[in-house]
């Protein structure tokens, strides 16, 4: 598709964008100018009539946006992923690799344990934790290394996020 552009954080079609803006501005601006003239001619209190004209202009913006929305469809492809059918342990291993150990669910408070059971994650988390504990025992020091890696990536994330503040 030749005309796709990224504008204001999402994908648009360049020609559709020009069309939409022409529709939006083409409806709202004349609506405002005409309303302003009518209210001024009606001899109303100046500033109040000016405000009413603004309201008419806003309605024009909404009408223009709705018409553009009806004419031009979104340029997004939505795929709805099915529930992950892979082995639960593989999925958890991936998360652990990025985030660090998820821990032993038995050490949590009763409310959190009930939540994990309701999600159907309790046995999977427990199995993963025990497997890791066994691996760590076997490999000696490797456990400490992986936990440290998780901590580092949390730090990296916070640095990134700080940049986009308000």
């Amino acid at each position: 598709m030749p005309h796709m552009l990224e504008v204001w954080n999402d994908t648009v079609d360049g020609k559709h964008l020009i069309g939409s803006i022409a529709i939006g501005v083409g409806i709202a601006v004349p609506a405002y100018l005409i309303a302003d003239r009518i209210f001024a001619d009606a001899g109303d209190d100046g500033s109040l009539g000016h405000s009413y004209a603004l309201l008419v202009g806003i309605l024009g913006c909404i009408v223009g946006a709705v018409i553009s929305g009806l004419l031009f469809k979104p340029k997004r492809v939505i795929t709805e992923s099915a529930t992950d059918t892979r082995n639960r342990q593989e999925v958890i291993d991936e998360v652990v690799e990025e985030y660090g150990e998820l821990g032993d669910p038995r050490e949590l408070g009763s409310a959190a344990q009930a939540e994990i059971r309701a999600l159907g994650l309790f046995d999977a988390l427990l199995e993963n934790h025990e497997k890791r504990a066994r691996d760590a025992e076997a490999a000696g020091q490797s456990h400490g290394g992986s936990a440290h890696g998780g901590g580092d990536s949390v730090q990296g994330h916070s640095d990134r996020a700080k940049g986009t503040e308000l």
Partner: protein
Amino acid sequence: MSAELIEPILWAIGMALLAAVVFTGIGLISGTDETAIVAPLALLVILIGVPPAGVIAFFLSAIIAKHISHAVPTTLLGIPGDTTAVPMLREAQLLRSLGVPHLALQKAISGGVVSVIIAIPLSILFALILTPFAEAIGAAAPWIFIAAAVLVAYTSKGKLAAVVGLIPFVLVIVGLQAFILEQKEATFTTSFFLGIATGPLIFDLFSALSPVGRRSMRQSGKREFNLAPDVRPAGGAKLPNPFRVLDRSQLAYTSGSAAITSATFVFSPVAMAVLMGEIAGSRIKNGYHRLTTVITVRNGTTESTYLAETLIPLIAIGLPLSPMAAGPAAPLFNAPPVYTLDAEAGTTNNLHDLLSTGEFALFAVIAAVIAIAVAYPFVMRNAHRAASWVMRSVSHEAIIAGFAALICVICLYEGGLLALGVTLTVGLVGGLFNRMIGMHAGVQFMGYYVAVLTVPALLAL
């Protein structure tokens, strides 16, 4: 209750309801930045002539509702709902990988609700503590603003470049103001705010118009989004109580960080959300529990920082002395001809003067109750369907068209074609600074106040 309070209360209820419905919807649309969306719409409500009670209720309800529904794209689509949703993106994605996106959403919005309940009374309390110093703060305002501008600039992505970038940016504003004053014998405010708030959009539109700029914006095809499966357990008709969704330690961490961030109103909301999440996370040993607690605390912080940073400067000082007050809440302080802020005399005529502390408290509570009553059940019940509908039916072209038209109409309203020219100039320069050197809109709003407050004070030395 006295009779003259009834009309303001009805205004507050009506406007809070309107804002709750509109902004619950807007929050579902990813990337709807608070400054770019909330500031122009708040401005609009003020200019149309809604009384102060309606304005404050509209604004507070808007931010509370938006910071509940912004968790929907963040948790279900893996794209941040707005600027303050960025810090919880990682936890949201990891919980989604574990197959529990609905839990991430429930935790985030429950954290938001709890935080609102804590932050409103505490912000008002801190405002009362600060009120005796308001006069001294007001007198020192020109120097506080320049210090704040430098600090906010240095903590932005642009670092030193954003600090030095303040010089040309302030000069552009001073120059435009002088020209406008010569032509119209009055100054503009709204068109400067609009230009700063929508700068990235204006810059992108210019860039898309230029063959050179288009090259870097080209996309190979439609963008793909992956919606998490709807995995809520059956029997979802019952509405979960936000206090039951969180366990005891999550309630404690959320309340604690809401209390702390109600006092730290001069810091950036995003930075505080990151920091509070880190502090809570570092104290939780269990990895799974850390994930769910951090997302709860971070979304809670987005609510408490926004409420405190709006209410404290409004109640205690009347000058927009917080990153939030200088950004999305800017029109509440300065929206001529309705609300004014006289730079030379240091006097104000805005919500600070028009509402008493008791009224602020009353309308804040009304706004919070209505926003939560609208947004929380809607998101709990319909998040998946709503996210899917927005992505499939609301085109980005239509949103841009609406905003482009809004910019034109508001500018023509303020000062005809000259105001439109001012918005285009400030928007293009501001958007360029934003995109190229990482000087975000908050720095630019501070720059605006340096131009109108500090520059005259410097010249008077």
